């Protein structure tokens, strides 16, 4: 059999893996974005607990961020993958179902990424909250704003503004973490490259392509976060 050239291999022709790789890139983006958004929600609550909670709540929140940032992400993914199935199996057996019930890999992946990145985002939000000046919060209170209104109008916009650089870093982490979800069998970019590499025996070509695609996503998202940062800072005068 004649060796295919690199561009035939990853192209969109009859023997090309182009569409498969593009679909898988979409899957990587989807799982990363879902995980990131779950992480934002988790992170907001954890940051709130750290800033405004009593001693016990603060202790739990501190424990959560310390533990999740101190153990390997792969372990957390295994916990969600195997533990989720075991939990579902236990619930299933209550209703008479038997045997192994698998959790969809996408859900496992998004949840695992969300829980991990939540710990990082909590620290980002907490740091940004501390920049919001006390005077603004007092002013909001003195004009009679309630908690939710104050959060929506005063705190959230300012915290988000200062959090953008940190969120950008977390997003890069999340994107790279999403490659680990391939161990659960979700066909994202790395998994698809693995499959293609196995069936064509051209592993280097496919992993290199995967690396280039990841790099492209990183590059575009760095640009977008920079745009967002510039936009959010448009009304702020900076020293130097």
């Amino acid at each position, binding site marked *: 059999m004649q060796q295919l050239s690199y561009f035939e291999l990853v192209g969109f022709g009859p023997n090309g893996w182009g569409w498969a790789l593009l679909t898988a890139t979409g899957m990587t983006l989807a799982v990363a974005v879902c995980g990131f958004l779950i992480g934002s929600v988790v992170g907001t609550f954890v940051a709130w607990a750290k800033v405004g909670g009593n001693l016990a709540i603060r202790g739990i929140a501190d424990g959560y961020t*310390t*533990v999740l940032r*101190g*153990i*390997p*992400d*792969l*372990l*957390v993914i*295994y*916990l969600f*993958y*195997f*533990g989720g199935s*075991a939990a579902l199996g236990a619930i299933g057996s209550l209703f008479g179902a038997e045997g192994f019930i698998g959790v969809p890999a996408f859900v496992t992946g998004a949840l695992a990424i969300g829980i991990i990145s939540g710990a990082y985002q909590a620290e980002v939000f907490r740091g940004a909250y501390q920049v919001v000046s006390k005077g603004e919060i007092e002013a909001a209170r003195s004009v009679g704003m309630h908690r939710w209104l104050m959060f929506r109008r005063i705190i959230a916009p300012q915290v988000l503004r200062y959090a953008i650089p940190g969120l950008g870093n977390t997003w*890069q982490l999340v*994107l*790279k*973490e*999403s*490659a*680990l979800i*391939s*161990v659960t069998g979700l066909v994202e970019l*790395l998994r698809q*490259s*693995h499959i293609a*590499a196995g069936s064509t*025996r*051209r*592993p*280097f*070509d496919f*992993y*290199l392509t*995967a*690396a280039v695609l*990841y*790099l492209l996503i*990183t*590059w575009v998202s760095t640009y977008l976060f920079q745009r967002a940062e510039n936009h959010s800072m448009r009304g702020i005068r900076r020293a130097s």
Partner: protein
Amino acid sequence: MDFAFMKETFLSLLSGVPLTLNLAFTSVAFGTVFAMILALMRLSGVSVLAAVAQAYVFVFRGTPLLVQIFLIYYGLGQFRPALQEWGLWIFFREPYWCAVLALTLNTAAYASEIIRGGLQSVPHQQVEAARACGMSGFLLFRRIVFPIAVRQALPAYGSEIILMVKATSLASIITMMEVTGIAAKLISQTFRAVEIFVVAGLIYLIINFIITRIVMAIEWWLSPHLRRPPAVEPRLEAAHV
């Protein structure tokens, strides 16, 4: 929670700790040397060298570590005849060396930015003063620039070492039986994910806790000028002997 089972798990996971530490420290040691070279290239003022270093950092920080590991471990298999001819196949055949190589290349990219930050934080006055005393070249670097830069970079370097300990878990995917590898095997045998996760997580937390303490101790030892001087006790002279 089954404590007898957890104790048994703890003992079997403990047998993976040497490999985890081995991978982490080997790659941090090689990675630091490489990172120094990259940082010096970046600051050399030679635009070609700086651009090469910058591109390297961009590529290795912008792609997932697992992709880098696969590229080296599986990907280089595509060039097996050539590698065998050069006698390098013995090296790339071993998952251990592939993991060390990938981790080293990866940490070098992150660490070079930390070192660059440290080197750039050295105040100009210090360098000027040293030059005025007649120091230059390596002596200037060894006596003035390096000690100041190390103090600046150390906290960030501590987090990088912890990231590397965490990153060694990826070596389990290419069959290395370190802590995560053993944990994954036990989980798939027993399906008791929660207990095994708790024990494995605890081992990583202990390792990382010890590393942070060591880094803090080195920081303390390197910064006597920031510590409050010990209270000088009035010396009691034996006046009436």
